[in-house]
């Protein structure tokens, strides 16, 4: 029976005053009853507007129909026909800009909680499914190398392995998962979930080689000529963090969000028994308004900071972060300074951060990004007392691959040039996707690119019997 409620079933969460002191997951997930109740809000529109909003075209109304009927495992099988990592997507996708944005229920109230249902189904599968995933079923001789084990690489590898190719992922860090393990915090995406997805991938025959930097340990030429890979996918991800180029940015206590989050998430600096040091700040300013900024701010709070500020040069309306993350951050006591832009970091005698000098902004004309450009208000300077500043203003693509492969065509800002449909690069047999192509974007866009590239690689290899 249709659930006419204009609001989503409320997501159970840890109490904000408790969770802002621990790293356990914030949202606890729907119960089976809540999931069925939420599924009953779906109108099963014939034209399926939600599906067209999904970068990997998950069969949304179909899986929701299964949930309605309590057929959770069948729902999982439907989702995984097009999405290899549902437990992850259900947690980190910006659904409000994708599937849920197009939901007809959103015209009068809240969209169906598609992301929450996807997460429920994936978690149900992990908890209840006793059937092991298909064992290694390599049937083809052709070999594909995947560079980087982030969302783009994992997706691409998963699809190609299912098709029977011999797939090897090369990861530069000591642990597979890319941004899912070094970037997104435990409280938003428990690492056990990433581990499980990677285990599944290994069971399907994918080999993962950690501690290998392509372009340094092994070159792309060697992948082709020495190791005889027939096709290569580059998913090397985000690279050098951007800074604002304001005075004081190299002071002690100024972090890039990448560094701050890596120390905490990958290196587990929040656990007593680990050796990686981190600066335990009291008052922290995080510059930026995306998901990464929210993650950094909420980590800082959990690391013991008393006051954490998000400093963002536009207004609340333009915040690029997922809505849920912004709400959670507010509940946890993160303070938002909108229409505020840093101009200088002031330091003490030992070059440690002391204050952040800011100016107030107002919104002016609409710019190329279709948002109103922030303009400085004269004589509005003020100093914010902080002992730590975290820059979360984006990254430029990783430079190592293009440095070692000069013939690879790249944009002036470093992104790899690819065909929009096939994700083929300027070099035959080499494909690319994710942040290495687009610059900093989302997990699901990277997965969408990995998927398209996998399909194109399959077409390429089908038509080609000999190797390079």
């Amino acid at each position, binding site marked *: 029976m249709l659930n006419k409620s204009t609001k989503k079933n409320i997501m159970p969460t840890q109490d904000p005053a408790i969770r802002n002191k621990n790293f356990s997951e914030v949202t606890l997930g729907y119960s089976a009853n809540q999931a069925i109740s939420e599924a009953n809000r779906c109108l099963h529109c014939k034209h399926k507007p939600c599906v067209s909003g999904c970068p990997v075209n998950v069969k949304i109304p179909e899986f929701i129909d299964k949930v309605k009927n309590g057929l959770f495992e069948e729902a999982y099988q439907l989702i995984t026909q097009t999405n290899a990592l549902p437990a992850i997507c259900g947690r980190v996708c910006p659904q409000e800009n994708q599937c849920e944005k197009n939901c007809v229920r959103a015209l009068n109230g809240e969209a169906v909680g598609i992301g929450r249902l996807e997460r429920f189904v994936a978690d149900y599968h992990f908890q209840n499914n006793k059937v092991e995933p298909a064992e290694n079923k390599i049937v083809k001789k052709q070999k594909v190398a995947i560079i980087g084990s982030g969302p783009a690489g994992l997706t691409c590898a998963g699809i190609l392995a299912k098709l029977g190719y011999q797939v090897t992922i090369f990861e530069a860090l000591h642990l597979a998962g890319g941004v899912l393990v070094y970037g997104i915090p435990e409280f938003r995406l428990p690492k056990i979930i990433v581990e499980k997805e990677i285990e599944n991938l290994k069971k399907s025959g994918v080999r993962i080689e950690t501690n290998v930097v392509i372009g340094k*340990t092994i070159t792309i030429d060697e992948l082709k000529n020495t190791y005889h890979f027939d096709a290569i996918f580059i998913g090397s991800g985000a690279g050098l*963090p951007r800074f604002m180029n304001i005075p004081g940015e190299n002071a002690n206590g100024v972090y890039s969000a990448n560094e701050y989050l890596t120390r905490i998430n990958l290196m587990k600096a929040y656990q007593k028994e*680990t050796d990686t040091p981190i600066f335990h700040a009291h008052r922290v300013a995080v510059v930026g308004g995306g998901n990464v900024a929210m993650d950094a701010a909420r980590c800082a709070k959990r690391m013991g900071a008393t006051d954490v500020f998000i400093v963002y040069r536009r207004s609340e309306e333009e915040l690029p972060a997922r809505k849920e993350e912004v709400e959670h951050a507010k509940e946890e006591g993160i303070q938002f300074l909108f229409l505020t832009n840093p101009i200088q970091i002031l330091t003490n005698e030992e070059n440690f951060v002391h204050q952040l000098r800011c100016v107030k902004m107002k919104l002016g004309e609409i710019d190329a990004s279709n948002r109103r450009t922030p303009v400085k208000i004269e004589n509005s300077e003020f100093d914010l007392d902080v002992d730590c500043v975290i820059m979360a203003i984006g990254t430029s693509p990783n430079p190592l691959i293009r440095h070692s492969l000069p013939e690879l065509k790249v944009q002036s800002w470093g992104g790899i040039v690819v065909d929009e449909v096939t994700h083929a690069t300027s070099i035959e047999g080499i494909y690319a996707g994710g942040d290495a192509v687009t610059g900093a974007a989302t997990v699901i866009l990277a997965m969408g690119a990995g998927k398209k590239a996998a399909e194109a690689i399959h077409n390429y290899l089908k038509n080609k019997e000999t190797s390079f």
Partner: protein
Amino acid sequence: MFKILYKKILNPTVTLMKIEAPLIAKKARAGQFIILRVDQNGERIPLTIADYDSKENTITIIFQIVGATTLKLNQLNQNDFILDIVGPLGNLTETEGYQNVAIIGGGVGCAIAYPIAKQFYLQGSHVETIIGFRNKDLIILEDEFSKVSHQLDVLTDDGSYHKKGFVTLQLEELLKQNHHYDLVMAIGPLMMMKAVCDVTKKYNIKTIVSMNSIMIDGTGMCGCCRLSVAGKTRFACVDGPDFDGHLIDFDEAIERSKMYISTEKKAYDHICNLLKEEK
């Protein structure tokens, strides 16, 4: 896992390890580094590759016991394993086209200077090497340097071996005696590299230094190793580790190197106490 094939205590605070790492040994060149993690809870630290042998499949590291991680690393012995090693990272040292080179090494920085001196020597450059240590007990690689240098000067801060004084004293002396260099390579503590650059600036000699910044990934992702070069932010892991010493903001680099000094001290003491308890 990476097997330690050989371990040698060079002096009370400096240890050499030869490690089996075939892929890295095949690619490594002078000036490059690795990042290692001793165990599951370990931090990632960069260490320069002191030597490499692609036939033996080995790389050599030489490290000074300065913090918790190097203390842990030093607990490992021959046939033990290091959990993670990745490399070779960073750019190799440009050696081509230089006829007369001065190599200046300070303390454990000599471990980095040695493969560079060797490369210059083998390509036929005239190599004059100056190495300095706090005292006689801390001297490393003297024999090795003597084999790859046309002239070798060893100095100690306290005069307990050979000449007393800092490496800059000897460098200035040689320059006053009209020794001519088209390149000075200085590798050692930041203070030493800064002092060398102050001297070579006066004589207008191109000077390259190797920056051993704090790092995590070492592949251009985290931005931790940044420094100011000619007023611009650069990253030691992907833009370096070698930079034109005359353009580096050394004072900033020195301050940045002290970021975790108090945390490091605590961690070091903690490991020391654990080791005492075990005994």
